[in-house]
């Protein structure tokens, strides 16, 4: 009987043939391999969020195998002695068991929680990068909207997540959430009672939060992330202007192997940072808080950082309640309504529609794939700084009792400082940011016209001192070059135009020698491309 020869070296090719016979993936696969990604550090911030989400899914699955969302009371009988014999809910008990009686349970709980904080932090930083560089403009408005929705979904997911252990700190937050829902006009009490299945806290809210947290919201987030990335693949990433870069191409590195190796490495790094945080910094020590009881509260009670700005807005809100009579009945609009329902509503709607609002203002209907430096769009940069200042005042006010206690400032003074700061500081930030942006623009053009300052001082025969400038292009009779600003970084130091080697060279090696492999370090590409056309400024 003839035995079929099994050749190991032929295995990859044989497998590929089998797969392609069935799926015809040769072309699409190669297209994916050859996809070009532009290479800038700020484009990696969204990836931090993506990788944190993966860590959340993995660690969350482990936790879900041990957690019990029931609010039924039981006596704690685990190994943490200071709580032995105390009446707690099953949710709290199972969270304590995870922390003290499951091997590695505390480590995974902490990884999950730190990853959650990092997830939202990365989303925020990524959102600001996209905003300040104008990456949300046409054709990416839909991706921006998906991004804003992802932020609010992450917010809700985190809130539901840290409420699950039913400890006193998050239970207080749940109480405030029920008060927020109660404050909604007309339907508030109905929605609150329906949500909690009766009076606060009831017996079902954690079961409902559990399903929201492990199934519904992660499902929606996952789906939106897939769409978000698919849009990115279809529309290709934006890029900074620069040599060879136009509005109709992407200059960078191909997906395989260069980009994937670095992206995979970054995933490991994000995972590693989360693991280090989880081992070295304690987070959410629920055993110190005790189980949630309606009569128990702590000083220095705050929600997690991404909710803290709403805590701040609630603290700063003055005691303004609307009371009026309609049809013979008295009605109330409590003060919690404005800072916790209306404000987040505005903060959702405004960013959602911002790309269209800005397009209307600037009357800009073109397709943009090139990014803008923040200094080149002063009004948007100033607006963004104003928004950040507004947010920071609220965020800091969310922790104003901790600040008051640790820095020995009066609590009442902190509240007043927040109220006044909220109104005064954002317009101030707008003005300052705009002036700085305009100043930077001016400096760019000045250097383009007059050249780079070399630091060499010359004295002419009249005795006048002047600094020698290195022009960046051909000059006219007056020494001015007529270079136009191209939307990219203008070199302002001599070592940026390849004139000098980095100073480290002069420390270990003589300044005059080149690097051992013959490279002159600079930002320009090394070899001209074959059959390459004129390299223009790329501004379209």
């Amino acid at each position, binding site marked *: 009987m003839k035995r079929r020869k099994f050749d190991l070296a032929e295995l990859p090719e044989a497998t590929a043939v089998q797969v392609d016979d069935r799926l015809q993936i040769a072309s699409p696969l*190669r*297209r994916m391999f*050859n996809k*070009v990604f532009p290479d800038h550090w700020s484009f990696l911030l969204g990836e931090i969020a993506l990788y944190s989400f993966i860590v959340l899914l993995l660690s969350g699955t482990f936790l879900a195998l041990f957690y019990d969302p029931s609010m039924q009371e039981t006596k704690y009988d685990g190994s943490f*002695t*200071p709580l032995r014999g105390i009446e707690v809910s099953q949710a709290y008990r199972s969270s304590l068991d995870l922390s003290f*009686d499951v091997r*590695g349970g505390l480590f995974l709980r902490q990884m999950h929680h730190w990853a959650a904080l990092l997830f939202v932090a990365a989303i925020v930083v990524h959102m600001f990068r996209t905003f300040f560089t104008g990456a949300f403009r046409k*054709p990416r408005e839909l991706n921006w909207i998906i991004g804003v929705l992802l932020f609010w979904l992450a917010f809700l997911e985190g809130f539901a997540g840290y409420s699950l252990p039913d400890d006193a700190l998050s239970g*207080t937050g749940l*109480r*405030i959430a029920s008060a*927020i829902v*109660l404050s*909604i006009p*007309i339907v508030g*009490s109905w929605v*609150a009672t*329906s949500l909690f299945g009766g*009076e606060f806290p009831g017996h079902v809210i954690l079961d409902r939060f559990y399903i929201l947290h492990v199934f519904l919201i992660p499902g929606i987030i996952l789906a939106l992330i897939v769409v978000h990335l698919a849009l990115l693949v279809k529309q290709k990433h934006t890029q900074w202007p620069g040599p*060879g870069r136009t*509005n*109709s191409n*992407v*200059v960078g*590195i*191909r997906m395989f192997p260069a980009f994937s*190796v*670095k992206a995979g*490495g*970054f995933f*490991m*790094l994000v995972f*590693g*940072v989360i693991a*280090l945080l*989880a*081992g070295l910094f304690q987070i959410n020590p629920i055993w110190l808080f005790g189980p949630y*009881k*309606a*009569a128990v*509260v*702590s000083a220095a*009670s705050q929600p997690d950082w991404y909710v803290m700005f709403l*805590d701040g807005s*609630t603290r700063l809100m003055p*005691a303004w*309640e609307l009371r009026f009579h309609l049809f013979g*009945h*008295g009605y*109330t*609009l*409590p003060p919690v309504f404005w800072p916790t329902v209306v404000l987040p509503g505005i903060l959702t709607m405004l960013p959602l529609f911002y790309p269209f609002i800005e397009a209307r203002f600037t009357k800009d209907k073109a*397709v943009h794939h090139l990014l803008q430096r923040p200094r080149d769009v002063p009004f948007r940069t100033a607006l963004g700084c104003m928004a950040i200042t507004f947010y920071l005042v609220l965020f800091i006010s969310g922790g104003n009792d901790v600040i008051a206690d640790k820095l020995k400032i009066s609590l009442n003074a902190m*509240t007043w400082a927040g109220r006044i700061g909220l109104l005064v500081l954002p317009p101030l930030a707008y003005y300052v940011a705009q002036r700085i942006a305009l100043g930077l623009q001016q400096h760019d053009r000045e250097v383009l016209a007059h050249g780079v300052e070399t630091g060499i001082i010359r004295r002419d025969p009249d005795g006048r001192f002047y600094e020698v400038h290195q022009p960046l292009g051909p000059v006219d009779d007056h020494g001015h070059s007529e270079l136009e600003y191209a939307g990219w970084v203008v070199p302002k130091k001599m070592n940026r135009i390849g004139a000098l080697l980095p100073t480290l060279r002069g420390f270990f090696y003589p300044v005059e020698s080149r690097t051992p*492999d013959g490279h002159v370090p600079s930002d320009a*590409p*090394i*070899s001209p*491309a074959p059959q390459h056309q004129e390299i223009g400024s790329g501004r379209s």
Partner: protein
Amino acid sequence: MSVGHHNGDVDLDDPRLTRFDLVREGARRDGVEIVHYAPRFPVPGSRREKRIVRSISLMFVIAGLAGLGFVVSYIAWPFHYKPGFNINKWFTPMLGITLGLTLVFLALAMITWGKKLLPEEIAVQDRHDQIPDHAERRLTGATMLNMADELGIARRPLLRRAALFGLLPVGAAAAAPLIGGLIKDPHNPDILEHTAWGKGIRLVRDDLTPIRPEDVSVGGQMTVFPGIPGGNTNDHADSPTLLIRLRDEDASKLRSAATKIPENADSMYGNLVAYSKICTHAGCPASLFEQQTNILLCPCHQSQFDITNNARPIFGPATRRLPMLPITVDDEGFLVAKSDYQQPVGPGFWERSSS
């Protein structure tokens, strides 16, 4: 340039083609031009290359060792709770450090590989989205219009209206169990207007023991619950009450202020006063009693209430005073409530009408 065979394609059967030529041609057919491709070490086997390879290998080895350390720590390190300072308390940090080092060194190795070993390259890809494809738009538009036409919705009003009539309630039918199952009436049974307190219900501590007036120190506060089964649990989360004994001057100040509010007028017992602990702003327990200034501070949003003036809010976002529980003593000398709170306890809501 779309995928497929065009003019300008390289003949793939040409024997002079190198592998990189094939790569370049494949990229070209995908719309990507590899503009610059330079190996980092044109001379293979240089000292620098060996040094970089060695350091990347070292990073992988460290990662592997740290990973091993993680597995060993996970299995063998003692972790059960023991009070005090002991080696068990280092279990989580050990896991974090070992796993963190594993991953970080893996990352360093991979990234260094990508940055220092892989060839330098610059590639340019065309976007092909600047010029709208009018032909495709027309074709798709025609297809879609035809779809709508064939369905005949526009042409057949009876069908359209009937379909609408049939489909809309289906949507409602899908939503009905979700909303109908969840919905609960807050007024029936009423949860907002009443608490667990009532006439004759004793004030008890957290351990359910009843309280005599002399148990509360002057300038002291006690958290009390209704003396019913489960009164100190979350089943009656609106009932926790703060019992305060004021000094004589403060008590008489409060007594005269209480006469201004009919429901508070007769609610104190001697120098003892009982206020709802549930803050009228957002429902946290307002429990920071400053015994010299007689201010009650709520830690959540810093509302401050003046205990000697019917717990009226004097700072912060709260707008309503804390309700006062009318108290007296029963035959055995224990403190009891005379009735429930005379107004809704806790945060405000739309239907709340009393002042």
